[in-house]
Every structure is written in C-alpha cells, then in structure tokens.
C-alpha cells in the first residue's frame, strides 16, 4: 500500500505517563518520569521523528539563560526576567528554574553535550541581557538531539513517531484521561489512555505569514503549528497572556536568527542604515522589538546586524557556529545573496507573530510544578507560560513536569472518559476525508494566516481586530464545512490548519481583552497606548467555558525576589539616547 493512503480505523493503548512532543522539553520530561518510577510505562508521542523534531532539530548554538554560580544568581536572573516582562511574572516558577538549571547543565554535560569553558576550566559565560550574564556557547551544539535520543533508548522510553495528537480526553470531573492521536501517514487513530499527560508541543509558530509568502518559511520549526495550545484550550485548561505575542528580529526573508546572541559577545551590534547603534541591548524583549520596529519605519531603516568591523578570525569563528547549528542553511542563504560578513552587514527584519513562551510569555498557564489548571495535565517548553525560558527552560521545566507527573500517576488510577468522545473526535478528524469536493487545507491555512498579518499584527487597532475576527469566522466556517483532505499527509495539514485557526482566534480574543499597552511591541494597542498598572498589572487567563472563549484577570503572585522601584523600568530604556 502506498504511503499517505488513508487507512482509517482506531485502536487503544494505555500508559502511566504520556508525553506529547519529542522536541526539547518532551524527551527530558519522559526521561525524568521514567527515572522517578522505572517500572512505569512512559510513552513519548511525536508528530515528526524524535531524532530530528522540534525547535532544536539541528541543535543549538548555546544556552541563552544559564544561571551559573559565580556569574549570576537565581535572585538576579528572576529579577531580570521580571523586569523584562513588565512585572507580569509569577516568580516562583522562574526562581525554581533559575535554581535548577545549573543541575540540568551538568546533566546535559554528562549526556555528552559540551559547554564552552575558559582556560581555567570555568564556564565561559557571555553577556547579552540588559543586566546580567547568562549566555553560554555550546561547541558541539549540533549533537544535542542525538545525545537526547541515546538517553531515551537507554531508559527504554516507548517512542511513537508520526502520530499527531488532536484532542485530550477528560473525565466527567475534568481530570485528564489520555489523548487521541492520528497517524500522519495512514490516518489511523490511536487512543492513548494515561494517568497523567505532559504537553511539550512547542510554539504556535505557523500563526503569522512570513512576508516572503512561503508558508513554511517561519521563524519557528514549521511543524510547530500550535496544536498544544489548541488541545489545552479544548480540554478546558487556562492559557496565560496570549496577547504577549512573540515577534523576533530576524534575517530578512530567510526569517531565522542572525544571530546577535552568538555574534554580540564578539562585538557585533544592531545598526541602522547610518551604521549607528540605536538599541542598548540585543536581548529579545518587547521593549527592544518596539525600538527595532520604530527604527525600521523611520527614515533610518533598514536595520542591520553589523559584523564587518570585526577581525577576520573572529568572523570565521562566528560563521563556524552560525552555519553549523540551529539553522545551518543561513550560510547557504548568505552565500546565495553574496553577503560576506566581512564587507557587508546583514539586513534584518521582524518576524511574523506567534505564541511562544520561549522568547515571550504566551503559554498554557502552569505553576512552579508545570501543572496546568486541568488535574493530571502538565505543560513545559515553548508552549507553557514560564516566560523567556528558551532551550534550557524547556529542559529544566520538562524535568520538573516529568517528575511531578509520575508522582501524580503513582497516586491515581486511570480516569474514566466517555467512549462517545472518541467517536465524536474520529468523525471530526476524518470529516475532511469524507468530502468529495471542497477547498484544500493549504488555501484555508494561507487565508487564515494572511488575515492574521492584515489584522492582528501590532500595532493592535481595535477596529482592525474586530474586522479580523469577522473574516476569521468566515474562514472557520469554510474550514468546518468545505475543507478536503485527499490523503493522510493532507489530513495532517488539515488538522494543523484547525490548530492555527484556534490560535488566531485566541490571539484576537486575548488582545482585545487587555485594554492597555504592555511588553513593548508585543502588545502595543493604539486605542490604549499607555501601560495601566492600576487596572492591568495582572495576568490574563483565557479558557473555554460552556463552549465559549472567555478571558479573566489573575493576580500576579507575590514576588519571591523584590524589585526596587528604580529597577522596574530598566527595560523601558532600550533606545540609545543622544549624548548630552
């Protein structure tokens, strides 16, 4: 039988802990769950292949948020992340991350992943952030996925590749009972009963449309279509601060990082068309992105990453990193354009919008044990709400989630679910395969994402958002009534399109709810241009209640690390001021 032919049908398996998503947080969560109870069954479900899936498919150039004794303290890091997020942070989870991440670095080191050390054998940590020093290069960063995979095999984790999870199963009292998934090459359904489920499904990276028009030329791994956000939403979990969009400074058209975190510590900097610096610091924050955006629109754009003033040997070292890991085709792109870093600066632009707590703060709401608001359901990595957590945060919070989820599974039996829910989901999933005639998913997806760009991109205008919601509702109707899938691969795209549209609706709803501007460009509302601490110094939680999308406020939990009044606005001072 040919690959992609629709087979259909359904089967059921069960496990103690189900981890969905085998990118960064997922493998670590699965490992830690198994370590906590080696007798238990841990299943790692992955839409692609664990060997090469997720944001670190080709490895990573370094750790962007390493809290290493002697260079930074957990208190200092927690304070910096709090300030960078305009204060809207439940510090407990950030502080816990900051305390635990050094142990995870040592563990990764024991897996064979190396971190840069100086001649004394100390970690060679670099400064990129506004205040502290947290960036640690990884000389063999291209080996990360292979090293993780070895650990998974050794621990006998059950890996199921090419299964896309579509919905969570819950019991009558709201506890998680498992998940429903679909084979992306045969359209066979697999129902997985589980005592606890950990979502590690990455960012919603296929939300905005890259300006090149190439649908898969996204900043995030294009497989990260926001399925985790959509699944958590439909299971009744709360999602935090979705209006705090992810927008990043990237190589124009190529749409990957340039990358200032790598080149900055060597002396590279972001410059305008006059070759001048205009931002104090290259760390990605909403406030920095706002200055970047303002410069692009001013007569001083385009914006560039400038390296040409550096020594040839230095540039060689930067190239050897940038063209080897994370997005290695960067080198091929620059070569095709004839851009030599020695003579020419790299033209930069801003990315499409997305949800990603890895760089901003938009994610499924979790506490300091990675627990969502649904009992037995956990989330970690780019899709969970711990802000600015990058790769090391995914590993560290994945570890927290794995341990706690296994403890939950050890103390609970399987929750019951209604068999009718499975039948209903089978019909929903297979609907596009049963239509003789209709619109293919790529057109529905393109239109939804084009509308996201036209109406939801900051600066956010209320009138535009309302129009956008109307247009998106029309696309939803088309999707639900006319979308077709002629093979299993197209069905995968059709299901992703549904996640994308759910995320677009959530992005619009959350943005309209917060009636102020915050986080620089991420939530810049022209109708409410000021930060309003009196009414909006809070999280917003979006969830599905009685079948409807609702938002509510949630108080920021008392700080663990106090922030002085004169420190609170340090990230608001990103623009370089003219010398007095």
């Amino acid at each position, binding site marked *: 039988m040919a690959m992609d032919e629709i087979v259909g049908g359904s089967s059921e398996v069960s496990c103690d802990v189900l981890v969905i998503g085998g990118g960064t947080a997922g493998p670590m969560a699965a490992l830690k769950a198994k370590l906590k109870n080696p007798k238990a069954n841990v299943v790692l479900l992955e839409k*692609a292949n664990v060997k090469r899936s997720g944001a670190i498919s080709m490895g990573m150039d370094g750790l962007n948020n390493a809290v290493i004794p002697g260079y930074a303290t957990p208190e200092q890091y927690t304070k910096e992340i709090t300030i960078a997020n305009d204060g809207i942070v439940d510090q407990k989870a950030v502080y816990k991350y900051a305390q635990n991440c050094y142990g995870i670095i040592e563990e990764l080191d024991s897996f064979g992943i190396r971190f840069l050390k100086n001649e004394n054998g100390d970690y060679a940590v670099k400064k990129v952030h506004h205040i502290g020093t947290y960036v640690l290069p990884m000389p063999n960063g291209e080996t990360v996925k292979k090293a993780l995979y070895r650990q998974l095999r050794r621990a006998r984790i059950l890996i199921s590749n*090419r299964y896309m999870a579509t919905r969570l199963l819950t019991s009558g009292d709201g506890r998680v009972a498992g998940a429903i998934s679909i084979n992306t090459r045969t359209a066979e359904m697999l129902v997985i009963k589980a005592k606890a489920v950990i979502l590690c499904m990455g960012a919603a990276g296929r939300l905005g449309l890259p300006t090149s028009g190439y649908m898969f030329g996204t900043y995030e791994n294009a497989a990260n279509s926001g399925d985790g956000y959509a699944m958590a939403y439909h299971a009744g979990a709360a999602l935090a601060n979705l209006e705090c969009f992810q927008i990043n400074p990237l190589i124009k058209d190529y749409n990957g990082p340039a990358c200032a975190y790598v080149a900055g510590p060597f002396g590279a900097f972001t410059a305008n068309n006059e070759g001048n610096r205009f931002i104090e610091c290259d760390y990605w924050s909403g406030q920095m992105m706002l200055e970047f955006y303002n410069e692009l629109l001013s007569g001083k754009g385009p914006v560039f990453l400038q390296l040409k003033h550096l020594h040839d040997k230095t540039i060689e070292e930067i190239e050897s990193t940038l063209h080897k890991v994370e997005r290695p085709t960067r080198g091929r*792109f620059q070569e095709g354009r004839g851009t030599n870093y020695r003579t020419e600066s790299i033209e930069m632009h801003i990315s499409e919008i997305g949800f990603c707590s890895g760089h901003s703060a938009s994610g499924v709401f979790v506490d300091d044990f990675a627990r969502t608001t649904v009992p037995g359901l956990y989330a970690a990595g780019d899709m969970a709400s711990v802000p600015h957590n990058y790769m090391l945060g995914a590993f560290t919070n994945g570890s927290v989630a794995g341990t706690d989820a296994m403890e939950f599974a050890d103390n609970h039996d399987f929750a019951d679910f209604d068999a009718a829910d499975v039948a209903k989901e089978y019909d929903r999933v297979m609907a596009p395969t049963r239509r003789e005639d209709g619109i293919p998913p790529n057109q529905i997806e393109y239109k939804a994402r084009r509308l996201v760009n036209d109406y939801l991109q900051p600066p956010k205008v209320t009138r535009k958002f309302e129009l956008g919601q109307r247009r998106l509702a029309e696309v939803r109707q088309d999707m639900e009534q006319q979308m077709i899938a002629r093979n299993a691969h197209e069905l995968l795209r059709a299901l992703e399109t549904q996640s994308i549209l759910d995320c677009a609706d959530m992005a619009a709803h959350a943005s309209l709810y917060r009636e102020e501007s915050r986080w620089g460009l991420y939530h810049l509302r022209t109708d409410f241009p000021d930060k309003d601490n009196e009414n909006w110094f809070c999280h917003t939680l979006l969830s599905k209640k009685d079948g409807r999308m609702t938002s509510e406020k949630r108080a920021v939990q008392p700080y663990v690390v106090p922030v002085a009044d004169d420190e609170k606005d340090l990230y608001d001072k990103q623009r370089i001021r003219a010398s007095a």
Partner: protein
Amino acid sequence: MPLASYQTSVPVVVDDVKCIADKGCTVCVDVCPLDVLRISDMTGKAYMAYDECWYCMPCEADCPTGAVTVNIPYLLK
C-alpha cells in the same frame, strides 16, 4: 469547487546516482520534521513530494551517501 494544480520549484534535490533508497534506505524520509520526502514508486529514489520545507537540513546531514542537498526555497532566496 474544481481544483487545479500549479507548478512549484522545490528546495530539496536528491542525486539519484548516490541515493540508495532502492536498497531500502529511508533515512531522509524518516527524519524530515515536515514529512515532505517520499520514495518514488517509479525510480525507487527519494524525492521531495510536498513543497512544505523549512530548509532545516536533517535530510542532508543524516543521508549516509551525501545524496541530498537542501537549497533555499525560491520565494525567499
């Protein structure tokens, strides 16, 4: 609604002489995060079946015979 297909140049190129998919190798098809590669029924060689590439490179990096090249998609190169 009637459908039409349109031509698109794809970024992943496979050298049929080096490709050993006809000997049972499926490495590039296995590792692709977007699942866009397939083995051709006609030639027995790997090829890019769906124009949904993130130009990320596992297919090229993991190919045991160096048969795969990832180019930058035309729209953004």
